[in-house]
């Protein structure tokens, strides 16, 4: 049977036994879950029981190329990497752009499923039908970017795409990332799982076709997307901060103006807000720094946006950067942009998450100042501010001394250190470090997204609805005019009536019901992207993107030959979202875990928050504990989950009438 958009084959790799198998997949799974995150979740549900520890040979590490990767759909290039996270103990799904996923599809595979543990360090070489597990002992301790270069040279394959871990992954640091050129799968310790399996890298080269079911219709849509992108990007949305006014991921590499981040995000261990930071002097200096190190703006596969950059700081190796890691080290260390670009180079070679790592280091220095950690813990640390961060980074990735504790992330380190260190863990959700934001008035939309997002990362759930109300009615009316993206006209009303002040403002507006619908829409779009391998930067993340709930069904249908309409697509996204929740519920996730840090907002409204969570759960088909109910699982065709819950004594009865 001819398969469209997907290849119809997975690679099963058992590293313990050195076994490699090519397995045909069931097309029914595509109908139910599309691919990418959806099919990853199904595999983890089916094959990894909840008792399995993240560092067990039975944990699976899955690299999936989304359903549309390798087709000409612009921006379809995401690799979705999944495993159980050593940090949260829940399911991790970290995604990376770049070139890996399309190459994997052209090699003839939708997913690479890795189990077991290799007795010695190895890498995987996938070249169409030829797949080998190769010795990587000579790559021990090598940087992630360096490793990719060495492998390409050793294979004499300049076109091979490589995803590799650095020293952090080898040492099972909980913040370890998987690096792939300008992109990385950074969050939730996925690189530590790769290191635990003894897998240094995967290199892939593919030269096979990916088929399209209805070529003319499909290309018409792709051409439309290509026409729309420059139009939309050339007309930034007025009244929205520059990095969010256009398309793509936040354009941190292009834009110099960092007033918003430096004055609204917290410095140090998510601790201090510096209100008048962005002076003319700072602006000039930072601009000069950025222009002097940024060699070129670069894209991912088949995407015209330029969210990444080649960074060449004199005296250190060239690397590639994207997004916000430009500021995370800078702000954690109360330093400047030059430092940020320099330390990020070392961090990239080590392969660590640019969100979590700086916070762990700032947290350690706070504990030192508070006397909870002592001189003994920091013996040998240089006295200059920047030097301290380099020193800490080196200790963490080598798991030396205090670094061994810090390598487990803020949450676990705080508990290991004790002596009141827990109080300094004030910016984690579900044991995972978050963006350094501390705000004033509760935002009901963000409350729900922070609290319930299964990705545990705000940028992976927020998006299509503006982050703040527009000042005037005219501005709002102008905005909704070409807002074809909304799933329902109601959303426009919510936005039109939303005021910065007065009755129709935070925290009671948008209303509980409206808030749930807004969150549901944004979340649904992310789940669609993550199954398709579509970059959020062209879809679920920016305002008025080229892809949306009305053209996706046509695109997917034309690519695959399945007939999917808006409702069917929405249902698939809901199925995937529910499956993820079920996987985590089976591993112990409950309502009490669904909450943002206590001090995320100064002004909290416990009664409203309860109502928000109740209403969200209800809309999602979860019971009051946040567990998917029998009825909703039945409706989504996942009775097997209820059966498993029953066996394990997990109560997933629905809400009774008087309760709801």
């Amino acid at each position, binding site marked *: 049977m001819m398969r469209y958009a997907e290849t119809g084959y997975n690679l099963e790799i058992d590293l313990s036994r050195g076994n490699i198998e090519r397995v045909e997949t069931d097309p029914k799974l595509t109908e139910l879950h599309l691919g990418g995150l959806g099919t990853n979740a199904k595999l983890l549900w089916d094959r990894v029981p909840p008792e399995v520890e993240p560092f067990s040979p039975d944990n699976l590490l899955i690299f999936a190329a989304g359903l549309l990767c*390798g*087709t*000409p759909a*612009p921006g379809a290039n995401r690799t979705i990497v999944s495993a159980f996270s050593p940090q949260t103990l829940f399911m991790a799904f970290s995604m990376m752009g770049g*070139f890996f996923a*399309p190459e994997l599809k*052209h090699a003839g595979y939708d997913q690479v499923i890795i189990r077991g543990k290799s007795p010695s360090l190895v890498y995987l070489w996938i070249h169409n039908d030829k797949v080998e597990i190769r010795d990587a002992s000579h790559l021990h301790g090598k940087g992630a*970017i360096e490793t990719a*270069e060495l492998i390409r040279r050793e294979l004499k394959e*300049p076109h091979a795409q490589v995803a590799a871990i650095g020293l952090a992954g080898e040492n099972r640091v909980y913040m370890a990332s998987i690096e792939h*050129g*300008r992109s990385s799968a950074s969050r939730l310790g996925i690189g530590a799982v790769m290191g635990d399996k003894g897998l240094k890298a995967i290199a892939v080269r*593919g*030269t*096979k*076709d*990916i*088929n*399209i079911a209805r*070529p*003319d219709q*499909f*290309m018409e849509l792709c051409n439309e997307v*290509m026409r729309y*992108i*420059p139009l939309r990007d050339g007309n930034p949305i007025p009244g929205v901060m520059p990095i969010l006014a256009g398309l793509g991921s936040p354009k941190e590499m292009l834009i110099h103006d960092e007033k918003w981040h430096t004055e609204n995000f917290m410095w140090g261990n998510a601790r201090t807000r510096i209100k008048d930071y962005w002076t003319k002097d700072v602006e000039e200096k930072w601009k000069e720094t950025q222009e002097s190190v940024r*060699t*070129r*703006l*670069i*894209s*991912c*596969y*088949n*995407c*015209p946006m*330029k969210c990444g950059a*080649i960074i*060449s700081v004199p005296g250190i*190796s*060239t*690397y*590639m950067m994207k997004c916000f890691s430009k500021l995370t080290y800078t702000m954690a260390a109360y330093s400047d942009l030059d430092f940020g670009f320099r330390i990020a180079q070392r961090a990239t070679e080590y392969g660590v998450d640019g969100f979590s790592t700086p916070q762990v280091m700032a947290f350690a220095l706070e504990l030192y100042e508070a006397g909870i950690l002592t001189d003994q813990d920091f013996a040998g640390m240089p006295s200059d501010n920047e030097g301290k961060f380099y020193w800490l980074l080196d200790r963490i990735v080598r798991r030396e001394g205090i670094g061994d504790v810090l390598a487990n992330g803020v949450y676990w380190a705080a508990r290991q250190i004790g002596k009141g260190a827990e109080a300094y863990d004030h910016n984690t959700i579900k044991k995972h470090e978050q963006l350094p934001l501390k705000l004033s008035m509760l935002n009901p939309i963000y409350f729900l997204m922070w609290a319930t997002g299964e990705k545990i990362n705000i940028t992976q759930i927020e998006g299509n609805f503006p982050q703040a109300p527009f000042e005037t009615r005219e501005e709002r009316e102008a905005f909704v005019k070409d807002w074809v993206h909304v799933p329902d006209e109601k959303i426009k009303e919510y936005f039109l009536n939303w005021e910065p002040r007065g009755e129709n403002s935070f925290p009671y507006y948008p209303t509980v019901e409206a808030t749930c619908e807004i969150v549901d829409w944004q979340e649904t779009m992310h789940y669609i992207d993550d199954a398709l391998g579509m970059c959020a930067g062209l879809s679920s993340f920016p305002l008025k993107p080229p892809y949306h709930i009305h053209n996706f069904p046509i695109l997917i249908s034309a690519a695959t030959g399945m007939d999917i309409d808006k409702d069917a697509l929405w249902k698939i996204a809901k199925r995937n979202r529910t499956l993820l929740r079920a996987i985590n519920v089976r591993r112990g996730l409950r309502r009490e875990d669904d909450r943002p840090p206590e001090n995320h907002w100064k002004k909290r409204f416990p009664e409203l928050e309860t109502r928000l969570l109740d209403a969200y759960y209800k809309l999602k088909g979860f019971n009051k504990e946040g567990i998917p109910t029998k009825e909703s699982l039945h409706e989504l065709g996942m009775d097997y989950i209820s059966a498993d819950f029953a066996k394990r004594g997990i109560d997933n009865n629905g809400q009774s009438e008087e309760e709801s």
Partner: protein
Amino acid sequence: MGKVKKKVKVIKIDLDKCNGCRACEVICSAFHASPKYSSSNPARARIRLIREPLQDVYLPVYAGEYTAAECMGRDKYVIDGKEYDECSFCRASCPSRDAFKEPDSGLPLKCDMCEDDPPQEEPLCVKWCINDALTYEEREEEVEEEAVPDEMETGLKALVDKYGLQNLMDSVARMSQKA
């Protein structure tokens, strides 16, 4: 022979504007699939991005003529301190490398400027390069009238390469006697 007007199709390549997205490869391969757009596979594209990010090398190269034998020596360019690999600037489908060959059959690939009926407005790689690293222009040139090698001639040339001129002529002579 006298002067004649000739339409010259030019794709201008601005390396500084290339962001390395490979959209040019994607669309070229899809366009040349049969049926049109029924599949995509950059390995079949008639344009190839040579990309060495760490050296800041971003070089789209078009597939040119098939050549039976590799060069006697190799060229290595250094431009603005950036060293380009051997053969980087060469457009030939050549035995010494795997660029510009069909992945299954090994048959040579050559950019045909997206010849189509009705004609495309502009080459598709240009259309999909919305950062304008690739731009298209047509101009007229006065050239000496010459017999432009047609398809038959190109085909014959390949046969000459393969079998030698004498063999080919003998065969043609035999065939014409039979006819």
